[in-house]
Structure formats: structure tokens, C-alpha cells
């Protein structure tokens, strides 16, 4: 298993830039999720790494070996990179066993033991070996596709939205099986997804792509707690964003005075107008008391394991709180909001400029 290093990668289709100056390092044996909305260039990046397309500029190295760079392009079949396409892409004319052994040297292809071993690795029954791909469920097809990619012991495995075509229950099960198989083989893996929960739960590090640029590359916890800007914050989870006035390290906003942490460049937290980010689970509701931030419950969305409570604030704004437990207030009740943890402070909205432009 090897690390993957992508440097300053750029790719355009006709005149449309798809990737612009992407740098990415995936440590050996880790799993990195490429997260982004559709059309952000994440699948293109995967295809460049696999060698199905050539970049306009920049370089790709697997371990110490440059597979794509100025004046050099190693053919896909010589890169030793496994690829698991969307919906599996199993060869429809071959059995499960023949699919899995496709990339093995000729004399190993008839070795039933190796196929059984790989089926076991992805958590499938050895009895499936003689089935045709269309006789498998979507999740099973994905797992066979992973076994097929892992069979030649590649230095890197790429997975292109492997779970997006599965329904919710099957998706979790398949995700666990895939993660377990990747861990068991110690494979270095890159997984493309547009599902933030999937990225946060399965990956060692998450690379957020937006408009063909890499905007943040970090571990899931840091990404959720310290997103680089408010767009990333809203993309990786629900966000409560409020206008605030920062003075001496404290953010004064409609929910009271909150301990603050600066998200922008530089260490010091500047005083003045700002926006603060809270996660809905940071809000707690208490009985209405004078002095605490007042709110009225507008609506409650009940999910079973928890609930989302929509709250009208005195200034006319609305925030949502995520509450677990049974004592969820009813619509119309007056409550007070308490905030736990730290508010993350972002620069103020460029409202004057935007407002003037819109008015003009």
C-alpha cells in the first residue's frame, strides 16, 4: 500500500475548467473522502488519478512513483490502482468468481480459494461465487466490485460514489462491510461522495471540493467543528448562523453572550460585527426565565431518536435546535435558549456591498 500525492492538478473540458490547482495528500493506509456537491469535479479527479483521463497540468504520484506529470503518463493498466465504479460495474457476462479473479494472473484465476478468501473479506458468502451479477442485490454487487478491485493487491483503491444507488438500510450495512474490508487489507483508499454523513462517518480525512477547488482537507471532527467558511459549515451539517457583535473575545448575539473562537486568518479575534456559527445540538431549551434568551416554539419535527425544534426569536429570526430525549416542548410554548460550547466566529456578511449592488 502506498500514499497518494496530487499536486496542482488542473483539468478543463473544452473551455470549462473542472479542476483548478488541486493539492491532495492521502497517507498510506488511510481512507480519504472526496466530498462535494454534484458537478464540483470530484469524479473527474478520481478518473485522473485512475488514469482514465489525462490532466492538463500538475502531477500525480503513488508512493514515490510519479504516474502522471509533465511529459509522463502511465497507462491505467500499469498504475496498480483499483477502481470501484458507481453501481459496481460488474462484467455482466462473467460470474461473480470470474469477475473477482479478472485482474489476477492467468494461473491464479482458477484458484477457488483466493476467490473465497476475497468474498469473505467483503463479508459475502462463498456460495455466491457461481452467481451471475444480475442475481445479486445492489449492495452485494458493490462488495463484489470491491473484492474484484482488491484482488490484484493494488497500491490504492478508488471508489466512485459506491453507496449512492443503495437504499438507506442497505447503504449502512454495505458501508460497514466496505470499511471493514479496507481496514483489514490496510488499503489506501479514496472515496467520492456527495453525502456528508457518509464522508464524516467512514473517512480518516475529508477533502471538500467546491467549484473545482479543494477548500478544506482535514479529519472529520475538525471539519465539522472548525469548517473553513460558512458554506462548508452548512454543507457538512446543519448550521445556525447569527449576526453578532464581538467584544473582547465574547460574541454578543440574540442568543446572549457566547464564548467565541475566531475562524478567519490570524490568531486574534477582531472586535466588531461578525457572524457566528452554532450547531443545532449546541442549543438547549429551558423553561422561560427572565434574562435568558427568549424564544417561542414554532414547530417540532419528530424523528424518533431526536427532534428538531424550530424557534422564533424576538428579532424575527428563526433557529433550529436538535434535542434528544422525551421532554420536547409543544408548538406555541415560550422557552429560553441556552447555548453550550463555543461559537465559531466568521467575518461579517459583505451586506453593504451586496445590498448596494442589488439595489443598483
Amino acid at each position, binding site marked *: 500500500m502506498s500514499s497518494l500525492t496530487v499536486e496542482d492538478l488542473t483539468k478543463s473540458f473544452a473551455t470549462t475548467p473542472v479542476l483548478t490547482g488541486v493539492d491532495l495528500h492521502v497517507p498510506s493506509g488511510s481512507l480519504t473522502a472526496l466530498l462535494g456537491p454534484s458537478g464540483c469535479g470530484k469524479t473527474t479527479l478520481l478518473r485522473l488519478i*485512475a*488514469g*482514465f483521463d489525462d490532466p492538463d497540468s500538475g502531477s500525480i504520484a503513488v508512493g514515490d512513483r510519479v504516474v502522471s506529470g509533465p511529459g509522463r503518463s502511465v*497507462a*491505467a*493498466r*500499469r*498504475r*496498480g*490502482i*483499483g*477502481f470501484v*465504479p458507481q453501481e459496481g*460495474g460488474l*462484467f*455482466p*457476462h462473467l460470474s461473480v468468481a470470474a469477475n473477482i479473479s*479478472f*485482474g489476477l494472473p492467468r494461473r491464479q484465476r482458477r484458484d477457488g480459494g483466493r476467490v473465497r478468501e476475497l468474498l469473505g473479506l467483503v463479508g459475502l458468502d462463498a456460495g455466491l461465487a457461481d452467481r451471475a451479477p444480475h442475481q445479486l442485490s445492489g449492495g452485494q454487487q458493490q462488495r463484489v466490485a470491491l473484492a*474484484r*478491485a482488491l*484482488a*490484484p493487491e493494488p497500491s490504492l483503491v478508488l471508489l466512485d460514489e459506491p453507496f449512492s444507488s443503495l437504499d438507506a438500510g442497505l447503504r449502512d450495512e454495505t458501508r460497514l462491510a466496505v470499511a471493514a474490508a479496507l481496514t483489514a487489507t490496510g488499503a489506501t483508499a479514496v472515496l467520492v461522495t456527495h453525502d456528508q454523513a457518509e464522508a464524516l462517518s467512514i473517512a480518516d480525512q475529508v477533502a471538500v471540493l467546491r467549484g473545482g477547488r479543494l477548500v478544506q482537507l482535514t479529519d472529520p471532527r475538525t471539519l465539522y467543528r472548525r469548517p473553513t467558511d460558512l458554506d462548508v459549515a452548512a454543507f457538512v451539517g446543519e448550521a445556525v448562523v447569527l449576526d453578532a457583535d464581538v467584544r473582547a473575545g465574547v460574541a454578543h448575539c440574540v442568543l446572549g453572550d457566547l464564548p467565541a473562537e475566531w475562524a478567519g486568518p490570524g490568531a486574534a479575534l477582531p472586535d466588531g460585527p461578525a457572524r457566528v456559527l452554532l450547531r443545532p445540538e449546541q442549543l438547549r431549551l429551558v423553561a422561560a426565565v427572565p434574562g435568558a434568551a427568549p424564544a417561542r416554539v414554532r414547530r417540532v419535527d419528530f424523528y424518533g431518536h431526536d427532534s428538531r425544534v424550530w424557534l422564533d426569536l424576538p428579532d424575527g429570526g428563526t433557529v433550529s435546535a436538535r434535542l434528544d430525549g422525551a421532554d420536547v416542548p409543544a408548538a406555541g410554548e415560550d422557552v429560553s435558549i441556552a447555548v453550550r460550547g463555543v461559537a465559531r466566529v466568521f467575518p461579517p456578511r459583505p451586506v453593504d456591498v451586496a445590498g448596494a449592488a442589488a439595489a443598483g
Partner: protein
Amino acid sequence: MGELLWNTTRLVLGTVACCVVLGVGAAWLVERSNVPVRRLWHVLLVAPLAVPAFVNSFAWISLLPGLDTYGGALLVVTLSYFPFVYLPVAAAFRGLDPALEETARGLGLSSWAVFRRVHLPQLRVAVLGGSLLIALHLLAEFGALRMLRYPTFTTAIYDQYRATFNGPGATMLAGVLVLLCLLLLLAELRLRGRRGYARTGRGAARPVRPVRLRRLTVPALAALAVLVGLALIVPLASLAYWMVTGSSTALDVPGLVQTTGTTLALAAGAAVLTVALAVPTGWLAVRARGRVTTLLERSTYLGSSVPGIVVALALVTISIRATPWLYQTVPVLLAAYVILFLPRAIVTVRSAVEQSPRLYDDVAASLGSSAPDRLRRVTLPLLAPGLGAGAALVFLAVVTELTATLLLAPTGTTTLATAFWSASAALEYGAAAPYAVIMVLLSAPATVLLSRDARRGLTT
């Protein structure tokens, strides 16, 4: 010339009109009403395609010699060609989204209003496509109309050719005929481009609730029975009658066996050659989409719109002028078959290539497989069924090909179609019948293929 144009035009318009009425009506009964044994009717309504048009007209004229009029020609070719409208319209009915119909009913429309305002607009492409197909086939039709002694461009070209041997008269008539065909081909291509709109309702998951015929069930059954009786039972019965009458004189078994063998060999050769030529074109059209490849693919469709007699005349001219040593040899005959039937092979090869997307190539490459290795282990196995179907379609088309074979076959080489033709031209109906029966039997599998895969374009 003027009379030929009038003859041809009124036959084309009349046949198309009759076929549309019969085809749409039958398709509605089979696909949308609760008429009994619908599946059986479907097979019976496609089955006339197994009887080549010139065999059908032989069957009719040998029983009723008075059919050599406009009315007779109209009757016989309509019975031969109405499945070309029935098939796409039935497929379109099947593809209609029942939700649209239910919505229309929910808005208070009557059954007739639903048919007129919801169904008909969506059937338009299928009806037009089938009509164009019939028009093209009619312009190219030689055997049937010649047998019915109804003169059109195609039969006139043949007469000119036989009388003056490649005179300017035949060439000029052929020029006009090709022009008419190209007009139809252009119309077809425009229609094909717009086909997407008619497809929105495809993939209807729910079965449609058929319209209850109630008291109209018996008349509906009677109508279908008359149609099938005229289009299928009459020709088959006529062939059977001549078989029985003819066998009392002499059944030339060795001749029959030898002719069948020659026909099968020619058909197999043409099938292999045509598919081999179709693969690169079909491949490029899907994998390297661009102006040049689209043009290349479309240009092969010209062959399907140019009547067999024109292709044959052109090859006669070329081989006499440029390569006299090739004139009336098997290679020239095979070339004619390839030109005429390449589009059928390309359509099937193309759809096979579409079913083997690049993804499989990419995955195989990522597993370390080289280009020749990928061709052997992935691409060819995936294409095999499509190539087989394409070869079968060409094979069966060659078995019943008459016009080009008459003009190009080497002296002494007879196929089922030409043997049948010379026997029936000599009014030896009993001797002709066995060849016709073998052609019908060999064509039956192609009919099965057609009835399954109905949403084909004009040129298939």
C-alpha cells in the same frame, strides 16, 4: 413517365392510408382493449411479415387472376405491409404512461377524447415512421407489383433494363426513383431526431387497465379474424393448394435441395461479411461520437433507402465498365447484399455497443488488462449477442431477396427467390410453391425477432 409517377404515387398514398387504418386499429384492439387472446392476435398480426410480398401476390393472383388492377395491387401490398404500422404503434401503445390517461380521465375526458387528445399525439411518431417505411418499401417493391402486372418505377426500370440492357432510359427512371427515396429518407431522419419527445411515457411500470369492449367484442374479433385471414391464411392456403396440386406432377427434390443450399451459402456469406463491416461503423458511432462518424453511420442508411434494383443496376454498370471479369460473379452479388442490408446490421451492432459502455473497458484497464486482452475478454463477449442478431437479420433478408439477385446472380446460380420467380413467371405454380414454402419457413424466425423488438427505425 407521367403515368408511372401517377401509378406509383396513388399506390403509395393508398397503401399508406389503408395500412395506417388497419395498423392503428389492430394495435389499439390488441394493446388497449380486452379482446380475447391478445397475445395470440399479436403474433398472428406480425406473422404476415414472414411471407415475402412477392410470394403473397403470387398466392393471390394464382387464385384470382383478375387482381391485376389498382384495387388488386392495393389489396395485396396493404396485406403485406400493414404490420410495419402495427408493430411500432403497438409498441407505442405499450409505452404510453397510464398516468397520462388516468389524468385525462380525471379531468373529465371521454374514451374517444382520450384517444384523440392523449393517445394520438403520442402515437404520431410511430405512425409516421411506419408510413415512411411502407412508402420506401413500396418504391423499392419489384416482385409483388410485377407479379400483379401493376407498372411502377421499379418494374419499368426492370423492363427497360431487360429490353435495352442498361440503356439511358433505365438510368433516368432510376434517378427519379432515388430522388423520391432520398426525400423519404430525409423525412425519416428528421423524425428520428424528434423521437425523444414521444418517448417520455416509456417504461410504464403499472399495467394498463384495458378498455372493456362489451357488446363490441364479437365485431372486434370478427374484424381481426378477417384481417388475419386475408393477410395470412389466404397466402398460406394458396401455397398449400399449389403444393398439393404441384406434387401430383413432379417435385424436383434434388433441384430444391441444391437451390436451398446455394441460398443458405450466399446468405451466410453475406451475413458474415455485412456484420464484419458493421462493427467498425457501429463502434465508432457510439464510442467516438462526432460529425464525421455520424455522417459515416448515416451514409450507410442510404443503402436501405435505395431500391434493390437501383443498387443492382449500379453494380452492373460498374462491373461492366471497370471490372468486366467481376461481372455476374458471386463477389458482386455479395457486395449488393452488403450495401442493401448493412443498415440492419449496424443498428443491432450499435445497440450492442451501447450496452457495453466504456466503463467496463476502464475497469478492465484498472485491473491491468491490455487492449487486446480487453477486446478478447470484455468487448467481444459483450457484443456477441448483438452481432449474432445482426447476422441473423441479414441472413434472413438475403434468403428472400429477389430483385438484386435476379440481375446479379452468376449464370446458372439460382436462389430460392429466383427459382420461385422463374417457375411462377412460366405459370408453373405447382413447381413454384415449394420454393415459396421454404422461404416462408426460413423467414419465420426473423418475424419472431421483429415482434419482440418493435421500436426499430425505418431502415431496419
